[in-house]
């Protein structure tokens, strides 16, 4: 379960409203490479992971993405807060204002509502983690484009840079998790009887050497004999 913390992961205090920017940034809320898609993708994939490291990393990054969703929502809210309907219309948000008013609605920059079709869950740990690596890179690229678009406002750029940086860290962690899963799937089949009969110590050593997985501990107690 989750507990709400009444703070943002990174502070956001935007002094000047700018609905034009909000129209673009909302894509990271409910767009194809946005934080909502990221969070749901990881939290859904975690159920099918074969090892503890990848379950943990999907769970914890999925959770952090929820904090990022709140940050992006906050940016959009503060960029449009107190702006008159006329100004919203001038910024291209007339249709948005008509349908959503002052809510922050999960949609892409182009106005497409969020869809679960953005989330890839293939039921295959390698395919899923490769997908996640690509998703982090796509999110990083999107943040870089957004930073280019709002060069004039440091209040907006700073949180966007923080979010961009987190994508880079997540990419790194997913890469490590992927290597762990590949190692685990590449392991030789292990039979307890064989171990007891012939490889009293050798088998333990062999499995210990595979990236710290405790396969030998959990499947075979031969190291105690």
């Amino acid at each position, binding site marked *: 379960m989750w*507990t*709400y913390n009444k*703070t*943002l992961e990174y502070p956001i205090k935007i002094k000047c409203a700018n609905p034009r920017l909000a129209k673009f940034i909302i894509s990271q809320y409910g767009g194809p490479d946005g934080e909502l898609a990221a969070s749901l993708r990881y939290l859904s994939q975690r159920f099918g992971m074969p090892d503890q490291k990848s379950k943990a990393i999907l769970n914890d990054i999925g959770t952090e993405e929820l904090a990022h969703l709140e940050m992006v929502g906050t940016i959009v809210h503060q960029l449009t807060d107190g702006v008159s309907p006329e100004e919203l219309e001038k910024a291209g948000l007339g249709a948005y204002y008509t349908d959503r008013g002052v809510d922050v609605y999960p949609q892409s920059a182009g106005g497409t509502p969020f869809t679960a079709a953005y989330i890839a869950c293939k039921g295959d740990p390698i395919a899923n983690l490769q997908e996640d690596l690509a998703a982090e890179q796509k999110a990083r690229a999107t943040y870089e484009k957004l930073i280019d678009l709002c060069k004039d406002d440091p209040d907006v750029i700073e949180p966007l840079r923080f979010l961009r940086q987190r994508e880079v860290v997540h990419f790194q*962690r997913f890469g*490590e*998790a992927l290597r762990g899963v590949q190692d685990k799937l590449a392991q030789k089949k292990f039979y307890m009887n064989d171990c007891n009969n012939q490889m009293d110590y050798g088998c333990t050593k062999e499995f210990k050497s595979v990236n710290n997985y405790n396969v030998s501990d959990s499947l075979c107690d031969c190291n105690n004999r």
Partner: protein
Amino acid sequence: MIENDVENRNCPMNENECDCKNMCKDELREEMLMQLRSYKFSIIELALYLDTHPDDEQALCLHREYCKKAKELSDKYQKMFGPLTINYPCNKWRWLEEPWPWERGNF
């Protein structure tokens, strides 16, 4: 009596040393929150790292240190400025009083 205690702690200086109690309170609040956010961020970053490097003793040690610091500061902050989660017990429901993170307030 407890309320008085909390009231006094809102401002680190005495009434006569600080002529603008509210500003003083806001500054302290902002400073404490910034520090708390740094601790919490360090915990998140270390946790992700430890997920894929569970045997790194140095990271584990840092994680313990930041958890301790975050807990101490978070207890202190909540006593002074109200709850940050619904897990904080109050005599009066103060969850509604503080601004939400998306409001510019002190966040």
